[in-house]
């Protein structure tokens, strides 16, 4: 009986798709309430997470100012704590590269992410910038010398010829340059997040919800693509696959997230996975907005609850494996990389479920491709 319904639904959706010849991207013209889904995403998930992140950024800037006004190790430690809180909050918003966020950089796939979390950081650019005062954080060549990875180095790393992280701001010949650099990086991040939050709190929230088109530019289509893109790149590849050596000959312990702090890569990865789980199931990431319409409930609506369950089971297995890893992924890949590649394999296991099965069920085209061929 269920089979029959699915069969009929499929025929109906395809016939509809066939007859609308001007809609090359297909699109499920079922009666699922996309407005309710988009409203849940905007009001209960995206905006609260962004506002929370904005607040942590503000705290971090305060800690930075206190440090610059009174440079000592205690204040640097307080700044480090604020940095970690902000970095954790970032894990809940990196996925939302939509609206004005995706227009803010020259990298169309990464959008605003380049100003916050492109790693590994290029330390030589920071050192040269601190020495010369010549740097442009809006230039493509500085995308990998700003954001949390740059702050990670500035707060926890040791500059060339120094002996402690604090030396950058005290005994280093370029101590003023380092103070300016850290100030400029945080100012840049705050400008960007303020722009994004203002956009959502202004006109964008309504246009996001109202853009129920099933074309590639519709909000739903973009959300699906952003979700899968973050899952595949931000989470799977950047946090796990690259350090595990899955795209190179050997493991690369220096390419973990927050390399200089080093003992938080697991914590950050788990928060990234939490974001994926909650977005999928339509649950508030920050605060307590009620669980509502989501990708998961849409799959239910399409009589694809099995797929929903398979995806959630895969997320759970992945979470359990990541939880068993060392707090420092650098240590993990050096001591027992097999555990790390097993985490990657579990993450990869959901890629097909999301990118092929779920995207097909939603009739959404994936707008990015792997550059795998030759």
């Amino acid at each position, binding site marked *: 009986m269920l089979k029959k319904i699915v069969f009929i639904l499929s025929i109906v959706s395809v016939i509809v798709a066939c007859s609308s010849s001007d809609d090359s991207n297909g699109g499920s013209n079922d009666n699922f309430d996309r407005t309710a889904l988009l409203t849940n995403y905007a009001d209960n998930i995206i905006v609260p997470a962004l506002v929370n992140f904005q607040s942590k950024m503000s705290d971090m800037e305060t800690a930075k100012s206190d440090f610059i006004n009174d440079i000592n190790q205690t204040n640097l430690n307080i700044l480090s704590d604020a940095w970690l809180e902000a970095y954790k909050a970032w894990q809940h918003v990196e996925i939302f590269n939509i609206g004005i966020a995706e227009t803010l950089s020259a990298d169309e796939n990464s959008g605003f992410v380049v100003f916050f979390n492109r790693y590994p950081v290029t330390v030589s650019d920071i050192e040269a910038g601190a020495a010369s005062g010549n740097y442009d954080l809006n230039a493509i060549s500085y995308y990998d010398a700003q954001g949390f990875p740059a702050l990670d180095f500035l707060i926890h790393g040791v500059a060339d010829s120094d002996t402690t992280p604090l030396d950058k701001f005290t005994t280093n010949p370029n101590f003023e340059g380092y103070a300016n650099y850290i100030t400029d990086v945080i100012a840049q991040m705050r400008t960007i997040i303020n722009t994004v939050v203002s956009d959502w709190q202004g006109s964008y929230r309504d246009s996001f919800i109202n853009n129920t088109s099933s074309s590639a530019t519709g909000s739903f289509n973009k959300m699906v693509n952003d979700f899968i893109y973050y899952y595949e790149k931000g989470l799977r590849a950047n946090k796990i696959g690259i350090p595990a050596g899955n795209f190179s000959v050997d493991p690369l312990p220096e390419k973990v997230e927050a390399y200089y702090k080093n003992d938080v890569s697991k914590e950050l990865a788990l928060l990234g996975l939490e974001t994926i789980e909650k977005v999928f199931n339509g649950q508030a990431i920050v605060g307590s907005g009620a669980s509502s319409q989501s990708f998961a409930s849409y799959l239910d609506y399409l009589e694809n609850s099995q*797929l929903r369950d398979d995806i959630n089971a895969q997320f759970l297995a992945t979470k359990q494996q990541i939880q068993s890893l060392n707090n420092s992924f650098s240590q993990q890949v050096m001591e027992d990389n097999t555990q790390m590649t097993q985490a990657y394999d579990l993450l990869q296991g959901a890629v097909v479920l999301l990118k*092929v099965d779920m995207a097909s069920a939603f009739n959404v085209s994936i707008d990015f491709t792997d550059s795998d061929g030759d």
Partner: protein
Amino acid sequence: MKKIALSLFVVGALFTSCSSDDDNGSAGNQVVAPATFQFERNGSTTVDYNGQTTRIEMGGEFVSALNDNTKTETELDGMFTNTGNYFSTTALNESTKNIRSKTAASMDYFSANTTEANVIKADFDSWIANQVSEVFPNWENTATAGNAGQIQEAGGSMRYVNGKGLEYNQAINKALIGALMVDQMLNNYLSTSVLDAGTNRADNDAEILAEGKNYTNMEHKWDEAFGYLYGTDDPLAPQLGADNFLNKYLARVDSDEDFTGIAQDIYDAFKLGRAAIVAKNYEVRDEQAEIIREKISEIIGIRAVYYLQSSKATLGTDYASAFHDLSEGFGFVYSLQFTRQPGTDAPYFTKAEVDAYIAELMEGNGFWDVTSATLDNMASEIAARFNFTLEQASN
């Protein structure tokens, strides 16, 4: 899961049928294979598999270097990974391709199983390392049970083996046929997961070409599969024996009268499948992919059985000849895990089964004391899984 599969199938089938409405109205577009593997658009070829040609050429130099005792591990690893400019030509050294990254790297078998892929890559790494650390230092010493060295075939070639009688260069050469050529061809480029990846199908239907290219992505994926077999051969009139990998062993199998015609069958399937992509008939395309999967897998199975059987003739009398056959057999047995049973997502032999065979061959002093009974048993089990007999493969 069934439900999903069913609905996807239905959606897929209906898309195909509605997209072909404006062509000739039949359920599937007519597909006519051209006489040769020649495909053009606007007067220019649409066929390109230079990356595969490059890798076959790299593999050729790499395998030769494995038998040169002046090479260092760094040099050999450098050829496996294309780092350090150890190839003979600038073109190879400056290529962005390398062999190791495509070893045990297919979408279907290894994209969500990188842990196992790493184990396989580590096998190759250790064979390379052992060739340098065990065999090269004993190049002039006579091999005995438990001791690496040289050993001469009756009136002929000198073989260089480890303490178990294994020629690492042969093991690597034949295992690469499975781990690189067969795996990439059958489990990657001929897979719907790759052919239909992203918007490939819609793009192919609309003849949207890859950026800056004269082919659609789907056409190109198919050609890359073709390239792993014919990459150094004449694509319009394959001579066979053009490399030391799959192309060579297709020639060997085809020259056995029990299997004569297999080369034509494979070529025809590649041609018809490619023509089907041009005609946007994916049913015919996938039928040809299944034919290729079966026939290419057979090459591996036949050669595994062949070497296990042929070694028996000299086992215990002409050790060097037997070891040479067994070393080739070792590599083909290893390659069984990369085969593909048509209509399934599985190889003819799992990795666990292959590992057990390899362990059996290497038990104790390895080839020095392996018995005919062991070889017969293994060969029979392998032949039984395939659509050929022990006798057919043995001569």
